[in-house]
């Protein structure tokens, strides 16, 4: 009885979903497949996308896998989005190679593709709305170098070893330090998958292995919070530079525990992606890259209107 009732419920729910899907069929539909949706960063991107959707009168959907390693789930989401006959699609690829077969399919079906957040190693996307992550991480490196007076040991806690943003931020930071601050030594580069607790444990292990470490860079929100936690728990004196925002990171900067962080413009990324996708669906020409910008913020400018507009809790 119990299971039969459950089954009937499930069938009813499915049919509801089906009819809802069909109701949208004749609207201009732009699905965005993101790298995630639970992190505050992605929620801010979604907010921008929804804003553009309301402004231009298009139906926007936003979906993403649970964490930044689930390349397979993202591909499923992308093929589901393509099956819904969209006007154009937005994609923030977790693995820039893995999505190419599906993007080819989109191209053959005449569905323009707009990449956002990370680029894709292909010329299929008509444009990419993104932060220049290498330049942003290089700015983080410049600030770190200045704060340390140009010397000391530094570690990096990355959020991904495989995604383009993970690689760009790591390389942008490491290369800039090597080029401008030859006396700074990178002693460890580890990856915590953006998981707060994992990044905390990694930070503590790095501090245990290198008690004389002077600076740590966390490459996204979860990584940076992990660094803050680990340093706080060890009672270490370390210059921390973060990336993105979120309440915990903002608090750490106000408390002085974190020196500062790089923020992207996530709302802008979402907004520009939908705007570009709509333009592409009408056949308009677009620049190859839409740079959505980035900023350094610290205790001195965290409340400036330009900065607080792009920070999120």
């Amino acid at each position: 009885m119990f299971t039969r009732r459950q089954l009937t419920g499930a069938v009813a729910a499915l049919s509801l979903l089906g009819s809802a899907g069909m109701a949208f069929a004749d609207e201009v539909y732009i699905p965005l497949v993101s790298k995630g949706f639970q992190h505050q960063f992605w929620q801010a991107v979604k907010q921008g996308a929804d804003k553009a959707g309301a402004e231009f009168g298009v139906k926007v959907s936003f979906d993403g896998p649970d964490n930044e390693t689930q390349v397979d789930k993202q591909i499923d989401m992308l093929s589901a989005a393509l099956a819904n006959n969209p006007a154009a699609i937005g994609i923030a690829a977790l693995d820039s190679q893995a999505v190419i077969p599906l993007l080819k399919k989109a191209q053959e079906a005449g569905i323009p593709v707009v990449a956002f957040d990370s680029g894709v190693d292909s010329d299929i996307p008509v444009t990419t709305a993104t932060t220049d992550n290498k330049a942003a991480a290089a700015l983080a490196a410049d600030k770190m170098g200045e704060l340390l007076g140009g010397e000391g040991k530094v570690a990096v806690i990355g959020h991904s070893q495989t995604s383009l943003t993970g690689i760009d931020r790591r390389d942008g930071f490491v290369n800039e330090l090597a080029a401008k601050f030859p006396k700074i030594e990178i002693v460890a580069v580890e990856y915590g998958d953006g998981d707060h607790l994992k990044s905390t444990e990694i930070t503590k292990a790095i501090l245990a292995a290198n008690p004389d470490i002077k600076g740590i860079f966390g490459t996204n929100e979860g990584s940076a919070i992990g660094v803050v936690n680990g340093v706080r728990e060890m009672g270490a004196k370390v210059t921390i530079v973060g990336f993105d925002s979120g309440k915990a990171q903002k608090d750490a900067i106000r408390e002085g525990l974190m020196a500062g962080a790089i923020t992207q413009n996530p709302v802008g990324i979402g907004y520009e992606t939908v705007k570009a996708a709509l333009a592409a669906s009408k056949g308009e020409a677009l620049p190859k890259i839409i740079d959505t910008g980035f900023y350094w913020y610290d205790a001195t400018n965290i409340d400036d209107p330009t900065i607080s507009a792009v920070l999120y809790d």
Partner: protein
Amino acid sequence: MTTAKAQPERPAPVRRAGGAHQKLLAFASLIVLVIGFSIASQRFFQIDNILSILQAASVNGVLAVGVTLIIITGGIDLSIGTMMTFCAVITGVVLTWMGAPLLVGVLTAIATGAACGLLSGTLVTKARIPPFIATLGLMLVLKGLSLIVTGTKPIYFNDTPGYTEISTGSLVGLVMPQFPLPNGVLVLFLVAAIVGWILTRTVLGRYTFALGSNEEAVRLSGVNTDRWKIAIYALAGAICGIAGLLISSRLNSAQPALGLGYELEAIAAVVIGGTSLSGGRGTILGTLIGALIMAVLTNGLRVLSVAPEWQTVVTGVIIIVAVYADQLRRRKAA
């Protein structure tokens, strides 16, 4: 309680003796790992780092202690990771959104876990859904609910003074300033001691083993097996609630997206500790040692700066070797 009368039963001592070898084996592996890492790096065996390792073991350890109970009954619980998160989220709702006092928050976390466990226990027994499936479903339901309740935003505990002390404060440090053992580790030891006592000294513990060895025989002897099993799932759920308190107080926030994957790490600790996945056999001390082995391994490999991708490979190999060594020992004993 009939505890006192039921205590001198035959099966329990036999099993405890059986577990002793495994505990010895697991304990020996732990010692070997610690000595190995200490030789490889002088940074490893420092008080600060040992405290870090213990603290890293606390959340996983508490989860593992809880799920040990269920695994001994021959069941499995895949929902513990997201259940932990869900308990943390509900605690956040009660403390931060409603402004309840700290103690109410603590009790809420435990009660939420117990309620979730009650639900999965009922699904397993009354609805006859296999534990793997019932808890897989619950894992997803709880994950979704955490995101829905929070609106995908983390809930912070800034307005509850003392909340972070649950995990990161140190009562031991007040007495022994040179060894500030984090409270989270105390909680782990306390939970392990209580559950170890329940498992070896009470009727509930005796039925936990009996259900895992031969559930049909227990039922035929006139015992209401469903009721006992539900109680075990509820107890394991309550322990998940404690893990929820530990992780959220450590992060000063309930992070709704965390939790997935934590169940497998806990199950790995249980298995390394010599508890049989087919049920009927296992010890809490073994699980505790299993959790410590996992924490020592991840910390040690990082302190040695082993490349991250190899850290994962080595951890996997150690899990397989630990269980294989246990198999060899049991074959010899048989």
